């Protein structure tokens, strides 16, 4: 799990960034399989390539475990599992950690690979369609149609929210 993903793929979507005006929003983007996701830059605290994930037995299935971020212990959320993505995961590849949420109790979102920080004009941001293939729209706040690709903007609050706590002790 410690293998670093040194080469973060950088997509050349910079022409969009050119059109930056005061009504543009910035997103941290990342990939999971063929899906392209974004989180508002204000919701992201930092990006960390490889943190050891300690699994937590009895935890809800969307929790991959806990990670140590410089002495602070964060819950690692398996993004694919959380939003219902059905993806063959190769544990060997490791994950990247997108640390997000409020500073009191941030969470680490495990994603496959990290993309660029993108600036998108507000005019291009559209409401969530009723259905996005393979993704639970509960966790989606907006979408943005880019040339040849759909940027799914995630709702960090929904991602962070603890699932209904019914005792998983069973």
């Amino acid at each position, binding site marked *: 799990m410690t293998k670093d993903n040194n080469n973060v793929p950088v997509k050349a979507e910079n022409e969009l960034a050119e059109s930056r005006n005061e009504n543009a929003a910035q997103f941290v983007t990342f990939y999971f399989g063929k899906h392209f996701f974004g989180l508002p830059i204000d919701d992201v605290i930092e990006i960390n390539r490889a943190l*050891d994930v*300690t*699994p*937590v*037995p*009895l*935890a*809800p299935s969307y*929790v991959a*475990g*806990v*990670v*140590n971020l410089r*002495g*602070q*212990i*964060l*819950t690692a*959320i398996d993004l694919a599992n959380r939003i219902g993505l059905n993806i063959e995961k190769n544990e060997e590849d490791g994950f990247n950690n997108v640390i997000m949420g409020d500073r009191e*109790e941030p*969470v680490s979102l495990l994603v496959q690979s990290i993309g660029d920080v993108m600036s998108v004009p507000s005019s291009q941001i559209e409401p969530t369609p009723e259905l996005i293939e393979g993704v639970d729209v509960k966790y989606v706040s907006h979408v943005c149609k880019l040339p040849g690709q759909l940027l799914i903007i995630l709702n960090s609050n929904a991602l962070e929210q*603890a*699932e209904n*706590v019914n*005792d*998983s*002790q069973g």
Partner: protein
Amino acid sequence: MVMEDDILKDFLAESKENLELLDQQFVELEQEPDNEELIKSIFRTIHTIKGTSGFFGFTTLEGIAHFAEDILSKLRDGIVPVNEEITTMLLQSVDYIKAILGSLEQTGKEPDDMVYLDFIVDLRNFAEKITKDVQTPTGENEDAKESGDEESTPEQGEGKVEGRTSKKEPPPTEISDKLPEAQAGRAAKKEHDKKSKKKTPSAPPVGAHQLTETHVRIDVHLLDQLMTLAGELVLSRNRLTQIAGQLNNPDLMTANQRMSLVVTELQEQIMKTRMQPIGNVFNKFPRIVRDLARAAEKQVQLRIEGAETELDRSIIESIKDPLTHMVRNSIDHGIELPDIRIQRDKPAAGILVMRAYHEGGQVIIEIQDDGAGIDPEKLKNKALEKGILTEDQLNSLSDREALMLIFQPGFSTAEKVTNISGRGVGMDVVKTNIEKLGGTVELQSEVGHGTTVKIKIPLTLAIIPALIVHSADQRYAIPQVNLVELVHLTKEAVEKDVQVIGDSEFYRLRGEILPLIRLRKALKIPEVASDKHEEGMNVVVLNAGDRPFGLVVDSISDSEEIVVKPLGQHLKHIRTFAGTTLMGDGRVALILDVMGITSSMSMAREEHLQKASLVTEKGAGEERQFLLLCTVADDEFFALPLALVNRLDKISASSIELVGGKEVVQYRGHSMQVIRLENYLPISPLPEQEDYHLIVFHMNGKDIAFVVSRIEDSLDMAIEVEEHTFKQEGILGSAIIKDKTTLFLDIYQIIQMHDPDFFVLPEREDTVESARILLAEDSTFYRNLLTSYLSSAGYEVVVAEDGQRAWELIQEEDIDLLVTDIEMPNMDGFELTKNIRANEQLKDMPIIAVTSLSGEEDKRKGLEAGVNDYQPKLDRDQVLTAVHNLLAPERLEMAA
């Protein structure tokens, strides 16, 4: 005395701070002489010092404070305007006060110096003088009315004029001399300027007793941060220790060892900065108790013990509310009204004790009252009424468990809810709050004698010692407080002493049945076939409240100091974990919550309880036992205490041989008799099977076994049997377990029916045991069991169903020896023993206490009460040996 010292310390620290403030305030006052608030604040400070010094009997200090206050009161009331002269005098008073405080701090006494007395006289004169200055020419007249008149009229208009005039007037020489000196003195103090002392004989001899700064106010957050940093340091140290161990470099090891010591010390000291005496909370209670007692029209005497016991600040804050709640409960419901208490031969005033002490790295807080106690039956009825539990569940509850009902949410037994408290409203909250702190609550109560609530809480929450164990390639930390011992079982020991019954495993640890929980199972990690205990078993024996249990882990590594970090919101609901910690290598390990693990186990037990409905008699026996359930033919269930069973085994039908009219099997290198129950009990015979189960007993140095067709299950439950339905030799009674009528086997009787000579000890054959034994035991099951084996040993047994009855019988009948249970209604075993020992005729009676659990605490108590021996009641051999030994001297006497 200790208390007084503490108060003095507090007083000194507080006064010092206030005095520092005073200097500043006086300066401000000079700038805005009309600031009433400022004068009032100064007045209050001086007033407090005066009051407290009066309390301690520091006359000089009191004197100075008194006159300073006198002057201030005039300022406050506007009789005299503020001027430089007055300010100077007051500042000087402050200096003197500081000097006296400094002396108090260093020597505990006021300085023995005439200078101070002189100053009092000066101050007094000055106070009088300024009054006179503003008085009408009649001067001396201090009449309040007159001065009041003077004050109201001239004050408004002339007040300021007066002030100015007095400024213009050349101040009295004495004072003008002092003015610069006092200021110089203050400034020079820090430099130990002796000159100023010489020049001004009337200035306080500051050099002698300097008011040193020994207390600093620190922001709590800073302390918390320090604590976190210390935690990080501990982690780094752990990591370094690991590396040093790996590198095996002696220099590095030495250096690391040295650093380790310092880090430990540092951590302890930082921890100490957060420690506060529990007295800070306890001290609030005399008032609370007084008010509550008055409101409830009761008399309550509060005793506080161990107020100096120190606890982490954060814990102190969080226990205040739970404590208040429990004290309320004690006063409102525990302690009776004075006339009722008198009727019950108790002093009219109830005694409430709040006690704190350290015990094994934990702090124990007890709230004890000598009130009415809590009646478990009442609680049960209430639970039934509220629908919290069903009747069947209640019947299987022991008294102790019934008492714990009080901690159920929404449980209130108060017949009327008073404005002070409705019992139970919040007892669940109390428990939750204490448990949040990593503590436990226990309740002991005796009807008519009072209730004790015992809270155990950790000293600190931040850094705890823990044992690191491994399971499924992950590390887990177990808080050391819960740890009892570590046991490694070899492969052979596992085969021999670990029994698998149904889904549960048990290990016999020094004769006690220890339920085993596999950590993998508790964590729902699938068991891999190769993990089967090929190399034995590592058992961590843990204590979680009432019963110890063994946690089976893959391997055990070191003990470490760990820093507790909470789990995030997604995970904190998992009761199996108490938090997380960082290991030396920077990875995270989960901290196990021992309580959480057992509660998941007891959930399983509750399921059993729901299935189990016992036919009971009144006067419930509260002893729990693990029972083994087995069948001979289908649908005929038998139960016996698991503790009596030595082993469970399986044999093939063909291995049973008939030797000399008795059936035997070759077992572990010798032949062992096996008993078919149908030969002695009117039951269906053992069906033809390929394999049979053996229940092996080891008694009297020999093995003997029952043959049954199936082992059904094991249950942990309170045994209460109905003895009349199946009156039959070999049967102790019956009960409904899991909807099935189950017969309790009288193992001793069955064995004796099978082999009358089985229990005869070779060396005892000649001595015919003939003695009358009184057996006091409230549980029918145990009464029958004990009677059975005592009479099979040849004794005549007289039975009593409680201590009260035993006490009557022992006085009426001719009894040679008493065998008594400890926990009994009406009169318990301790009391019975005390009564006997106090009786002139009976005091030499040999007494054996028997119990279902062998708690060290009970044993100690029993021996203190005066019992001769203390034995587990299920252990026939030990009880009989004890009886035999205690009767031996008597036989000798008789022979002589």
